[in-house]
């Protein structure tokens, strides 16, 4: 950014400088040419009236003009110096040998072959011109200084904002709300803004801690009465009046199952919240994803067989850094879904491999797939797809998957076609 800005400024300065130089020079040259041309017209007129010589002597008296009439190409006035420079096409510039003056001159050829040199004194004008040139050079130099200074300022600003962005990104990526923007000075606006951001982060941190406290309290406060409810139901089972009443016992079992379901949903929700908020990597270690897949398949194999499904696996060693329990849970949730949605006789295929140093896992099922409009929603808490509304589950399985993948800074892609759904995980 800073570089682009400086380049733009630099180009503008060069264009402007060149323009002003060229414009002034052009103006100067053009003006001089005009004066000489009109002089020549006047002289031609005088020459026809045979009054040329008289006029020349008179006009040359104050040294503002210089004239010479010569007949052939080789002849040359004696006051011309060795060095003659060309001011423009057809106009020469020279310094008079006897007078300390500069002249711009043009040579006019009369019809009879005589040649007339008409010179105009440009000493003053050229001094002015040189001064103007000096001024435009000075302004270019100043502009360059401005460019350099603005480059430094923009570098400072860009560094500062990049620093803020880096900190913010770090917080987003790790969930570590204790990080703060490094404030180096206190006099500039940017440091002031960084300070304000830090205060904002303090506030967010204390709010987050509050939320966590609240959810912990909910966990504790709701679990305890639910536990009691469960305990009372359990002890009811052994009560004398109920012990031999099968109908009541069945009802109590149903109630217990309901209580367990509530608790499980609640625990799952808390678990997701914790994974999302804490971003704890304390249990991360070097693991092999294919080994975990192997274990998950081993665990689910009887279920796959019972449902009359066929599975293919193609597992290559895929080392990665992660939490084995959480990854096992994630893969179990995904495989569970695949088994649930694949009709009997269908196929499930699972593969792991390394690609560009990343661990990749693909899981394809033979189910109905997920429409594109639903794909963004399935990771929301409690979302149940149209096709899965009547299957068992709490709508939290994929939310957990998403939380775990985010924790591992992985990417999840879904591809749905006529054959089924393919889930691709990249870590």
């Amino acid at each position, binding site marked *: 950014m800073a570089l682009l800005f400086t380049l733009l400024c630099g180009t503008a300065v060069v264009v402007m400088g060149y323009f002003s130089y060229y414009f002034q020079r052009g103006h100067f040259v053009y003006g001089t040419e005009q004066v000489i041309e009109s002089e020549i017209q006047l002289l031609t007129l005088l020459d026809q009236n045979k009054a040329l010589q008289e006029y020349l002597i008179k006009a040359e008296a104050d040294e503002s003009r210089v004239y010479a009439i010569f007949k052939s190409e080789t002849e040359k006035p004696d006051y011309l110096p060795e060095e003659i420079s060309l001011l423009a096409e057809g106009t020469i510039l020279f310094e008079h040998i006897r007078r300390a003056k500069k002249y711009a001159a043009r040579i006019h050829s009369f019809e009879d072959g005589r040649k007339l040199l008409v010179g105009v004194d440009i000493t003053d004008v050229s001094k002015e011109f040189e001064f103007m040139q000096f001024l435009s050079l000075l302004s270019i130099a100043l502009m360059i200084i401005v460019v350099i200074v603005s480059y430094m300022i923009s570098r400072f600003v860009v560094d500062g904002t990049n620093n803020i962005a880096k900190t913010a990104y770090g917080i987003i990526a790790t969930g570590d709300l204790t990080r703060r923007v490094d404030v180096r000075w206190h006099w500039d606006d940017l440091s002031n803004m960084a300070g304000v951001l830090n205060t904002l982060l303090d506030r967010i941190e204390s709010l987050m801690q509050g939320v966590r406290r609240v959810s912990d309290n909910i966990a*504790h406060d709701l679990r305890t009465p639910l*536990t009691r409810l469960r305990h009372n139901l359990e*002890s009811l089972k052994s009560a004398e009046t109920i012990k031999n009443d099968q109908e009541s016992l069945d009802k109590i079992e149903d109630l*217990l199952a309901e209580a367990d379901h509530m608790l499980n949903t609640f625990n799952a929700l808390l678990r997701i919240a914790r994974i999302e908020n804490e971003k704890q990597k304390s*249990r991360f270690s070097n693991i092999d994803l294919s080994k975990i897949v192997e274990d998950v398949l081993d665990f689910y194999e009887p*279920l796959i067989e019972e449902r009359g499904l066929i599975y293919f696996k193609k597992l290559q060693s895929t080392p990665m850094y992660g939490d084995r329990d959480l990854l096992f849970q994630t893969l179990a*949730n995904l495989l569970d879904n695949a088994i649930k949605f694949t009709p009997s006789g269908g196929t499930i295929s699972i593969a792991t491999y390394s690609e560009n140093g990343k661990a990749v896992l693909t899981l394809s099922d033979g189910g109905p797939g997920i429409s594109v409009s639903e794909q963004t929603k399935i990771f929301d808490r409690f979302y149940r797809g149209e096709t899965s509304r009547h299957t068992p589950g709490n709508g939290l399985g994929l939310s957990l998957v998403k939380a775990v993948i985010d924790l591992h800074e992985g990417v999840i892609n879904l591809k749905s076609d006529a054959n089924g759904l393919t889930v691709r995980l990249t870590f």
Partner: protein
Amino acid sequence: MKVLIIEDDPKVSSYIKKGLKQEGHACHIADTGSDGLFLATTEKYDVIVVDRMLPELDGLTVLKTLRGAGNQTPILILSALGEVDDRVKGLKAGGDDYLVKPFAFQELIARLEVLNRRSTKATAETRLVVEDLEMDLLGRKVMRAGKTIELLAREFNLLEYLMRLKGQVVTRTMLLENIWDYHFDPQTNVIDVHISRLRSKIDKGFKKPLIRTIRGAGYIIDDYDNTA
């Protein structure tokens, strides 16, 4: 089995006490951490159940103090904090097992019995027997009524775990933790499928099934005499 319960919620502690009494176990209750520590150091218990969050002294401190003093009584930690990290912290502090509230009483008693057995019995067995079912741990062979039964490695481990804890209820969570060695919640009851597969191999064709399901709790393998 003599059990000490360190728990500040009187409803929970009386519920455990009632259940333990019904099963014929002696039970003491301490409702603060320091009382619990006092009882644990002055009396001899078979198993100690300690809640993590306690008034005065928290559960982990009690645990560390006991272990620091060389007390090796098996300890089960009870807690509303069920995250893997909390679990690991509790076990690292010297706990032998960890149970998350809310729990089913069967889960607790099953775990307590395992802890008690582990401390009283040196487990250098090479053969496990339940009625006419025999398991040779060295040769990794299983026979029922003299007939060899072919089991997959996973099925063998499952049966071995059940047979080692013969006569005790083994919960699904215990199986997950011990056989599969992962802490997770299966969404579908896959464990039941594993058990029914195992059953079809060892119980099919025999009059009396050895593996029984305890509704709302788990599974048990036992001799015929003890089955009600």
